[in-house]
């Protein structure tokens, strides 16, 4: 029996990207909400709520990028030039917000600068990620194993919409995370943010979902063709369920439910994307199998990943367990 290594790796990479999106999503969301919170103690509290975990969260992005190069070099070689500008902007923005975590505490005079760099970096990085996603969804032309489009192809009304949708969506994750991790004045503000961002996220998920099938006949067939529709119908139904849970959670002032419901929305949106993409890794140009490196390279890398990924996951879960509970105004590692 031979293993379908490209498929296994596609699953692993998809998992890494999903973990990245939901984990870094809420800490980027904290940065997006930063400008709407004025008091210094509340800002300290917001940052402290993610300080111990954000770096680990972001490392999944490195795993995603490094993994793509290692196992799907052709996809890596096509996607990166196609998304040149959004990727570059995202990387630079991530630098600004990343160092803010550390530098902000090292200065009193310059604190406002690092506050700005944290908020601006978070918003810009998220918007760039959303644009990159939109550009990937609308498809990337390939000729002779290389990107065959123009330099501004990534910038379309659709990609701007997905960019905005991701900013609002991460803000929802951030707000519901704050509900879970804080109390008092900041938590009350977080409920308000969550109502607005929640409504916005659902509206934008709706618009993007309705627009996507019209981009590409494959998507249309996948979502509206008979009998495939029977297989995919649970996705929108579960989205509706999560929306209901979010509504109930926020109305009843529950602590954890809004966050879990928001995570559910993200996971389902991601599943929706996987359904649309499969079997392509670059829609509709390169499939998983044509992008994959030879099996020999895949199995060599799989050995390391099979040992280390579970360990890393365990660490991650352990770290979150340790930092459970409410965060105070001081004490990044309470």
């Amino acid at each position, binding site marked *: 029996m031979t293993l379908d290594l490209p498929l296994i790796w596609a699953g692993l990479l998809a998992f890494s990207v999903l973990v990245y999106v939901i984990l870094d999503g809420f800490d980027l969301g904290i940065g997006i909400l930063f400008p709407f919170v004025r008091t210094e103690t509340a800002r300290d509290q917001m940052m402290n709520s993610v300080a*111990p975990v954000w770096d680990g969260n972001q490392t999944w992005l490195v795993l995603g990028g490094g993994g793509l190069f290692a196992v799907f070099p052709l996809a890596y070689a096509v996607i990166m030039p196609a998304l040149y*500008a959004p990727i570059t902007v995202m990387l630079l923005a991530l630098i600004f917000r990343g160092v803010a975590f550390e530098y902000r505490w090292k200065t009193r005079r310059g604190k406002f600068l690092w506050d700005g760099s944290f908020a601006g970096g978070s918003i810009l990085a998220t918007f760039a990620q959303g644009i990159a996603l939109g550009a990937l969804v609308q498809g990337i032309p390939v000729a002779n194993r290389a990107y065959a489009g123009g330099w501004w192809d990534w910038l379309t009304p659709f990609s701007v919409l997905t960019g905005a949708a991701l900013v609002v969506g991460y803000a929802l994750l951030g707000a519901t995370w704050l509900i879970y991790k804080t109390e008092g004045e900041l938590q009350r503000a977080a409920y308000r943010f969550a109502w607005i961002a929640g409504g916005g996220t659902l509206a934008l998920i709706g618009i993007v979902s309705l627009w996507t099938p019209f981009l590409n006949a494959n998507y249309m067939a996948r979502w509206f063709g008979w009998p495939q529709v029977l297989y995919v119908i649970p996705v929108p139904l579960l989205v509706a369920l999560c929306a209901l849970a979010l509504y109930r959670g926020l109305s009843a002032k529950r602590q954890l439910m809004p966050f879990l419901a928001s995570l559910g929305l993200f996971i389902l949106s991601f599943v929706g994307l996987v359904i649309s993409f499969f079997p392509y890794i670059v829609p509709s140009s390169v499939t998983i199998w044509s992008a994959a490196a030879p099996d020999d390279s895949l199995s060599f*890398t799989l050995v390391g990943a099979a040992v280390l990924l579970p360990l890393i996951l365990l660490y991650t879960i352990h*770290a979150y367990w340790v930092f459970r509970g409410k965060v105070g105004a001081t004490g990044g590692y309470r």
Partner: protein
Amino acid sequence: MESLDALLLARVQFAFTLSAHIIFPAFSIGLASYLAVLNGLWLLSGRGVFLNLFDYWKKIFAVAFGMGVVSGVVMTYQFGTNWSVFSDRTGPVLGPLMAYEVLAAFFLEAGFLGIMLFGRERVGPKLHFFATLMVALGTLLSAFWILAANSWMHTPAGYALNDAGQFIVTNWWAVIFNPSFPYRLVHMVLASYLTTAFVVGAVGAHHLLKGRAVRQDNSADRTMFSMAMWMATAVAPLQILAGDLHGLNTLEHQPAKIAAMEGHFETRAGAPLILFGIPNASEERIGYAISVPKLGSLILTHDPNGVVRGLKEWPKHERPPVGIVFWSFRIMMAIGFAMLGIGAWSLFLRYQRRLYDSPWMHRAAVLMGPSGFAALLAGWFTTEIGRQPYTVYGLMTTAESVSAIDAAAVGASLATFIVVYFAIFGAGTFYILRLMRRPPEPAEPGLPADEPIQAAGLMPGPVLSRAKRGAAT
């Protein structure tokens, strides 16, 4: 012409982002090992001064490590954006090596860094020492994988080509332990150690100079200065030897690079060693050369009349740019011998028992503080520009490797990278220098537990939470 400009800009961008990145890991590799040594010496001797130094340098390590992580994220994506053809064709070989580097770094960050930085009181000194060793090992493991990938590009082995034009692996062992890898690994690790030693020595010397009249107990200053000078005495000659061996390996596999480094245009027996001169690539000669007869052949072939190949053996389009390589090699050599001199001088003063009372020695050590970084960059410039015009030596040229990119796009992103890096890493360097300006105290405080720090990674968790809870009760 336009594609040529885009190619040059992409090369400058890669050189810039990589140069900015490499200085932090190089410092981290050396400092992680230094911290492990300090920790071990403390456990062995029980002398508090080693513990104070450990707590002093770990704060600096934390900031430097954080900047290495931040600048490293960019590198993961740079291959794809600017060098997509290269990525596609070499991905099956280099991708897995880099994936292992990422996994090793991730594992290190996740596993032991938090304990090393915050956990001594909680996990006990033995386990804490183990974590420190693991961090040092992790930095070396990262270097192992990344240098395996880099060395393969210089001396490719264990590969075949498939129908799509991709390099595929026939033998992983041959890929990883390719001919230049052992030399490059040793040379780079020693370079990291020397770089760190000279930084530590400069900080020690600075406080010895400043604290001469005021401070009662300067044992920590003395200890770090002395340790750094021992490193200079012992490792600088080793590094020169390792560099020589690496050079002979390069002569075997990349003779054109050696010709450019030495400034030899003509193939001849009994070639001189050119100490200085002005390379003139268009007229194919070295102007104003000051040289030692026959020494070039003696060094390279171990025979004063040995034949050394010159650049004219290769057509012009297969030669590396001689000017930069010629000079960067000399800068590296000059710094290497200056380090050797400092080591010898310190040994002499030590023998005279005047090591801590010699202001001129201390001033020289302060001056030499950043020299390791300069030598490191000069060395990388030598080897990377010297292998032009190839990315995969002899098989794939740099011009073939580049993405079909627009000069304007690369130029704009390059300009942004430069501005951002100077702002961000300038600020980081400023914070590091501020930490160094303060001398180590007899009871050196640890890291403030209420400030987030990037290098804490995933795992400050168990340690800190218990520390806090313990403090609360």
